[in-house]
């Protein structure tokens, strides 16, 4: 599983990254987490509100800081 966090580096993006790592750990998943801060790359996903969460190249959430509980539901 490849997970990407899209965000230009605002505090919210960092919280999302932290929550995502927590969720992965708790679910015992094998997943790679990558942070995408390049604006061109972010825009290619079609989102305008950051932070966004991308799982296997699919945008699963944007414009929202998900809690690790919410992320768990998305990853299952």
């Amino acid at each position, binding site marked *: 599983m490849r997970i990407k966090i899209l*965000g*230009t*580096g*605002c505090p*919210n993006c960092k919280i999302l990254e932290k929550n995502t790592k927590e969720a992965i750990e708790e679910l015992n998943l094998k997943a790679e987490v990558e942070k995408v801060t390049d*604006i*061109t790359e*972010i*825009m*290619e*996903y*079609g*989102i*305008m*509100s*950051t932070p966004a969460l991308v799982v296997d190249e699919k*945008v699963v959430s*944007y*414009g*929202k*800081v998900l809690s690790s509980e919410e992320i768990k539901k998305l990853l299952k």
Partner: protein
Amino acid sequence: MVDIFYPFQWIADKFTYNLFNLARETHLAESINFIIYDVLKIFFLLILMIFIVTYIRSYVTPEKTKKILGNKKGILPNFIASLVGTVTPFCSCSSVPLFIGFVEAGVPLGATFSFLITSPLVNEAAIAVLLGIFGLKITLIYVISGILIGTIGGYIIGLLKMENHVADFVYKIKSKEIEEKKKTQKERVQFAIGEVKSIFKKVWIYIIIGVSLGGIFHGFAPEGILEKYTNNIFGVPIATLIGIPLYSNVLGMIPIIESLVAKGLPIGTALAFLMAVTALSLPEIIILKKVLKKKLIIAFIVITGLAILFTGYLFNLII
């Protein structure tokens, strides 16, 4: 009419006269009573406003907006963009993706700017604090002029035809269409509650500080002390110019400004200052530099600044 804020007065009284045991009708007791009452009232309004606006926001996403605004002409898209700007959140870090997304979807540059101007200027937290501190009339004036500044400011920028002053890479980006998931009512309410929590956590301390400083100033500075210095033709431009580099928390600023108004600062000057602080902030300008060339940034600052000046003078004249 029943005073819906009465419970807060009751709590403030209990705290001041029973818990802290302060003597009634002293300067200190009255100031503390006033601060507790105002903080409680603003907290209440803040929670209410954030909830209502973020609930509406779950329907008006920027992704949807760009579809509505794409390829429309005239001043109407500016007005719509400005209106949408009032309910969308704005932190300077989201301005670049929003800007690119709009431009890329074919939203006219002017309408994009209408959105960029109003979005930080009119936001739910500022409305709540303005309501609590200045009352309904001034809040309405602020909101309506904010929407008009965005509409007209963006329209003028559109007339300047500065499309070639947008950073070149912006036009090269091709983004995928994104599918929007249908949200359930429960999800919308949960989203609103989440936003209430996260915004409240960020701002409560500034409100306590702002109200306290305002309260101290109310209690100790003589009435009308500022009138002599601020009631002149230069008041508005000076207030606007001071407001631009001042990137402070506008929410904490509002109670302080109100106490200055009580001491004679003209209301138009005060509004111009608050608008300059929110609409034109240095960090935002720095971030926008990534996507705008110099001339367009200058046009944005000058036009928004002039619109704020005009509003300030207008309200000094008519209120």
